[in-house]
C-alpha cells in the first residue's frame, strides 16, 4: 500500500461502495418528506420555479455538519415524524427548529437522544426519529455523501407546483448516497439558536417595499406593518397565506386596475383581491398577476418556511 491509500478510519469505511450502495430506509415520512437541494435557478424564463430547500440556512447547516458539498440533497420534513433506518453505518445530521432526535438500536431500544443541530453516526440497523418541534416546522436530514436521485434540470428538488423532481418520499423507500462529500467540518454541532416562546410575541419578518407598493400607498403599508397576521392552514411550499382582522386595500384610484402577469420571487408579498396577503415560498409560480406590496429579506424567507398554521406574525418595513 502506498501512503496515499492509508486513510483515516472514517474514509476507509465509506469510500469503496459509496455511489450505489443503499444507505437509508424510510420507515415513516411524517406529514410530508421531500428531497430538496439548492434548487434549479436559471430556468424561470421557461416556466420553471427555482424550488429547493424552503429554509436555505437550515438546509445548508445540515449538509455542512456531515461535510457534504454545498448543493447535496437532503430530506425536508414537515412537523417531524420522519423515521429512517440505516442499512449500513451512515453519518447523519438534522438541522432546523429544536426537537428531539431519538436513536433506537436494532433491538428497538432507545440508545440515545440527540438535539437537532448535531451530527452523529447511525449504525447499521439503527433508526432515528425526528420529533415534533415545539416551534417551527421544517427539518433537514443530511447524510454524509448526500442523497442520490435523478436530477431534473440539474436539481434533485421536489417541486410541488410544477411536479418536477423526485416524487414525495414514501415509507419503504430506499435511499443511496450520491458521493458528494468533502472534507470533514471542524465542528460537529451548531450553536443552538435562542429558543422562542409564546411570550416573545409574534415572529417578525423583515420586508422592503415591493414593485407595486404605490398601488396601496402609505395606508396600505401601514396596514401591512400594524396588523398581527395569522398563518393560514392553506399554506405550503408554493406560498404562505395570512389572515388578519382587516384586509389591505388598494388606493381608490387603483381599485379596478388589472396587473399584467409579471415575474415573481420567493418572499414576494402578493395582495390578491381579498386583501389578505400571500407570501411566496420556493415553489412559487414564476409569474403572477396580483400586485406585490413588499418583499421579504432572504433571512426572512427562511423564517417564513418555519411558520406554522395558526401562528401570529408581523412585518417590519425596512428602507
Amino acid at each position: 500500500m502506498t501512503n496515499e491509500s492509508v486513510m483515516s478510519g472514517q474514509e476507509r469505511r465509506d469510500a469503496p461502495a459509496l455511489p450505489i450502495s443503499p444507505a437509508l430506509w424510510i420507515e415513516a415520512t411524517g406529514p410530508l418528506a421531500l428531497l430538496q437541494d439548492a434548487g434549479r435557478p436559471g430556468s424561470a424564463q421557461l416556466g420553471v420555479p427555482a424550488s429547493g430547500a424552503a429554509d436555505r440556512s437550515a438546509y445548508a447547516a445540515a449538509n455542512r455538519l456531515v461535510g457534504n458539498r454545498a448543493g447535496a440533497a437532503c430530506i425536508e420534513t414537515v412537523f417531524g415524524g420522519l423515521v429512517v433506518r440505516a442499512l449500513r453505518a451512515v453519518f447523519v445530521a438534522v438541522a432546523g427548529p429544536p426537537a428531539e432526535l431519538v436513536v433506537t438500536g436494532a433491538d428497538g431500544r432507545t440508545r440515545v437522544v440527540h438535539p437537532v443541530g448535531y451530527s452523529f453516526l447511525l449504525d447499521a440497523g439503527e433508526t432515528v426519529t425526528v420529533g415534533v418541534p415545539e416551534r417551527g416546522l421544517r427539518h433537514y436530514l443530511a447524510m454524509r455523501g448526500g442523497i442520490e436521485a435523478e436530477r431534473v434540470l440539474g436539481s434533485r428538488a421536489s417541486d410541488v407546483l410544477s411536479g418536477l423532481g423526485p416524487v414525495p418520499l414514501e415509507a419503504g423507500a430506499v435511499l443511496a448516497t450520491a458521493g458528494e462529500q468533502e472534507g470533514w467540518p471542524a465542528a460537529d454541532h451548531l450553536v443552538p439558536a435562542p429558543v422562542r416562546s409564546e411570550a416573545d410575541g409574534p415572529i417578525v419578518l423583515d420586508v422592503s417595499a415591493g414593485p407595486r407598493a404605490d398601488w396601496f400607498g402609505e395606508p396600505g403599508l401601514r396596514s401591512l406593518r400594524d396588523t398581527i397576521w395569522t398563518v393560514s392552514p392553506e399554506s405550503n411550499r408554493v406560498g404562505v397565506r395570512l389572515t388578519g382582522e382587516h384586509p389591505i386595500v388598494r388606493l381608490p384610484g387603483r381599485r379596478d386596475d388589472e396587473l399584467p402577469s409579471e415575474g415573481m420571487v420567493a418572499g414576494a408579498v402578493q395582495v390578491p383581491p381579498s386583501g389578505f396577503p400571500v407570501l411566496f415560498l420556493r415553489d412559487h409560480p414564476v409569474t403572477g398577476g396580483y400586485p406585490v406590496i413588499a418583499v421579504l429579506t432572504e433571512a426572512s424567507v427562511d423564517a417564513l418556511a418555519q411558520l406554522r398554521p395558526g401562528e401570529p406574525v408581523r412585518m417590519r418595513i425596512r428602507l
Partner: protein
Amino acid sequence: MGAEWGSPTSGTVPAADLELRLLPMGESALLIELTDARRVVPLYARLRAAAPAWVMELVPAAKTILVVFDARRVGRAAVGHWVVDQAARDAPAAPIADADPVTVELALRYNGPDLDEVASSTGLGVEEVIRAHTAAVWVSAFIGFAPGFAYLEPEDVLGGSGARDVPRLDVPRRAVPRTAVPAGSVALAAGYCGIYPRESPGGWQLIGSTEAVLWDPSRAHPALLAPGTRVRFVRDE
C-alpha cells in the same frame, strides 16, 4: 408618500428617456417595467445575450422583465446601470440562447371544440380563422402558467416584420374553464395563442391539437417555445 418609509418605489432609477422604470423586488431582484410592451422581447434577448455571471434569472412577462441577481457578487445600483446601458444600445437583438431552433414549424389539426365559437366571436368563418392562424408569424413573448407554456403573440403586434394584413384572433377566455385540457391542445385567449404542454385545467378556447412535445426536461432545450422563438402553424389535414 410620507417620510416614514420614503417612497415605496424608492429603488426606482430614473430612466424616463428610455421609457423604462426599475422597480424594487427585494434584496436580490429588480423589475424592469417597459412603457411599450413590444420592447420586452428585444430587450430580453439583449440582456440574455449580455448577461454577466451574476445574473441568476431573467424572466420576461407581458410588460416587464424580472432580473434576479447574486447579491453576494453585485450591488443593486450596478445591476440597474447594466440594464439601462443595455436598453440604451440600438444593436439588433441577438438570437436567444435557449431558443433552438429559432423558428419552429408546428403541424396542427384544426379540430378544437371551440373553433366554431372562435369563428363566431371574431366574425370570421372557420376557414378564415384557420387561414389567419396559419398566415401569422407568432413569437413566444414569455412563458407562464406551467413549464413550457408559451404566450405566443403575432409578430406584427410585437413590432416585427410579420404579415400585417392578417386578421387578429383576439377572443376572450371561456366563461367556465375546463377542468382537463388535453396535452398538445392549441388555444386562443386575450390576443395570445398557447399550447398546453401537459394535461391541465384551462380556460382558453381550443382550436386544434399538435403532436409536438412542448416540454421535455431531458432535452438540451426543454421548452420548445422558449421566449423569442418564432412559430408558424402548418395545417395538418
